[in-house]
C-alpha cells in the first residue's frame, strides 16, 4: 500500500492542479514578501506600505481588504484547484492501465482506493502546509511578532476540509465515472450547495434540516478555516460532525469499486 501511495503522490505532483496551486502560493508569498510592509507601535498597527507606497486611506479600510483576500479568496482558489484535481483521481484510477496490474498483486481493491485517497490527500496537505507555514513566518517577521498566531491551524483545517471533499468526489467518481461531471458536482457542492445548506437553522422547514444533515457541514468547516486565518476562535465541531459523512461516503465508494468490472 505504501508503494501505491508513493506512486499516487508521484503521479499527481506534476498534474496541472498541483502546478497551478504551487504557482499561486509562490506568487502570493513572493508578493507578500516584497510588497507589504507593516509598522507596529506598542502592538498597534500604525502604518502599512504596499509596494513602497504608504497607504493614505484609513487603515480600517485597508486591513479588512487584505484580510478578505487571505481569508476568502486565497483558500477558495486553492480549494477550487484541489477539487478539480481530486475529481480526476478516482475516475483516472478506473481507467488507468496500471490499476489492473496493481490489483493482480497482493494489493486489494479497497487498498488501492485508499492508497489513491491518502496519496492525493497527503500531497494537497503538503502544499497547504508549505503555503500557510511560510505565510505565518512571513507575517510574523513583517509584523514584528504581532500577526500570524492561529495561521498554523489553517493547514490542518483546510486539509480536513479537503479530506471530506475528496471522499465526496471519490463516491461521485465511482457512480458516474466522468471526471468533468465529478468536478462540476464537487465544485457545486463546495461553493453552492454546502454554503446554502449552512444557512439552515432550527426554524427551517424539516425537509431542509434533513437535507442539511445528509450533506457534510461544508459551511461550518469553511467558517472554521476562515476563523483560523483571521485569528478568531475557531469552532472545529463541524469537522467532527463530518466524520460519519466521510466514513459513509468512503465505504459506499469502496463497495461500488469492489463490484465494478475493470477495463
Amino acid at each position: 500500500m505504501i508503494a501505491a501511495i508513493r506512486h499516487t503522490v508521484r503521479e499527481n505532483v506534476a498534474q496541472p492542479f498541483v502546478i497551478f496551486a504551487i504557482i499561486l502560493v509562490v506568487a502570493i508569498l513572493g508578493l507578500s514578501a516584497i510588497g507589504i510592509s507593516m509598522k507596529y507601535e506598542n502592538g498597534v498597527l500604525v502604518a502599512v506600505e504596499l509596494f513602497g507606497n504608504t497607504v493614505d486611506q484609513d487603515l480600517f479600510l485597508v486591513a479588512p481588504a487584505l484580510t478578505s483576500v487571505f481569508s476568502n479568496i486565497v483558500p477558495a482558489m486553492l480549494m477550487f484547484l484541489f477539487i478539480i484535481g481530486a475529481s480526476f483521481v478516482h475516475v483516472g484510477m478506473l481507467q488507468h492501465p496500471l490499476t489492473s496490474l496493481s490489483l493482480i498483486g497482493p494489493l486489494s481493491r479497497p487498498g488501492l482506493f485508499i492508497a489513491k485517497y491518502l496519496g492525493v490527500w497527503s500531497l494537497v496537505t503538503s502544499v497547504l502546509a508549505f503555503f500557510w507555514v511560510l505565510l505565518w513566518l512571513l507575517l510574523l517577521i513583517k509584523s514584528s511578532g504581532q500577526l500570524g498566531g492561529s495561521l498554523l491551524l489553517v493547514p490542518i483545517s483546510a486539509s480536513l476540509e479537503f479530506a471530506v471533499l475528496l471522499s465526496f468526489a471519490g463516491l461521485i467518481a465511482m457512480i458516474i465515472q466522468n471526471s468533468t461531471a465529478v468536478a462540476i458536482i464537487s465544485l457545486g457542492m463546495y461553493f453552492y450547495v454546502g454554503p446554502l445548506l449552512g444557512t439552515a437553522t432550527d426554524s427551517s422547514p424539516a425537509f431542509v434540516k434533513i437535507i442539511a444533515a445528509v450533506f457534510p457541514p461544508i459551511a461550518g468547516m469553511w467558517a472554521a478555516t476562515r476563523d483560523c486565518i483571521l485569528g478568531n476562535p475557531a469552532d472545529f465541531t463541524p469537522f467532527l460532525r463530518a466524520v460519519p459523512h466521510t466514513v459513509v461516503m468512503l465505504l459506499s465508494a469502496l463497495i461500488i469499486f469492489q463490484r465494478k468490472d475493470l477495463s
Partner: protein
Amino acid sequence: MSVVVEARSLSKAYRSGVRGRPIQALEEVSLSVEEGEIFAVLGLNGAGKSTFTKIFLDLVRPSGGEALLFGMPVGQHRWKGLVGYLPELFSAPAFATPRSVLRYLGGIHGLRGSRLNQRVDSQLETLGLGDVADRRVSSLSKGTIQRVGIAQALLHEPKVLFLDEPTEGLDPAAQRMIRTLMKALSESGVTIILNSHLLSEVERLAHRVAILHRGRLKAMGDLAALLPPNQDLHTLEEVFMLHTSLTDQRP
C-alpha cells in the same frame, strides 16, 4: 500434472445502461489448463478472450459459473502474487521510466530492497531494456514499451502468465526472443495463457488451443486434434476460419 487454470461453465454478460440489453461476452465456457502448458485462446475481436482473462484476474466478475486458479475460486485471492499479466496495449504514465514502472509494480508485489533491485535489473537485462531503463516512457517506441510490459509481467516470478498479444508491436528479433522466453518459462513449469491473433505464433508455441466465437467455446485441443487428417484442414488458420464462420472468405 496439476490443473492450474479451470473454467466451469463460465459466463459473463455486460449490461450497457440501466435498461440496455445484456451483451453476452462469455457463455458456458468450460476448460482446464495444466501446469507448464502454453494454452492459446483464439477468437475474433469481441469473441470474449479478454473477458476470459480478466475474470481469472478478478478484474471482471463472472455472471455465472466458476473460475478457479490453483483449484481455488478466483474471488478468494489466494493466487495473488502467483500470477503475471500483460494487458493488450500495455501503457505506463508518461512521466515514468521503465525502471520506475518495474520498481512500483515490484513494490506492489512485495519485493523490497536488494531483492527488488536485483529483479528489476535482471528483467531490464533479459528484455534488452538496459539502455533505456531511465528514459521516460513517453520517449520510447511502441515495441520498447511492450517489452516493459513483458518485463513487469515476469518481475515477481509468477507461476501463471496471462499474456494478451505479447508480440504486438515487436520487431521480428524481439518476437523471436519473446517466443524463446515463453518456451523456457513453460519448460520450467510456468503456465501460460496466450491471447494472440498471430496464428503462426500460436502454431509454433501452443500445446493446446481454444477457439472462442461470440463468447462460446467452438473448439479446443492440441493442433493434431484440431487438424484431423481426414478433413480438408491443413493449417490453424483454416480451423480458425471454420469455427469463426468465415469459411466463405477463404480464397
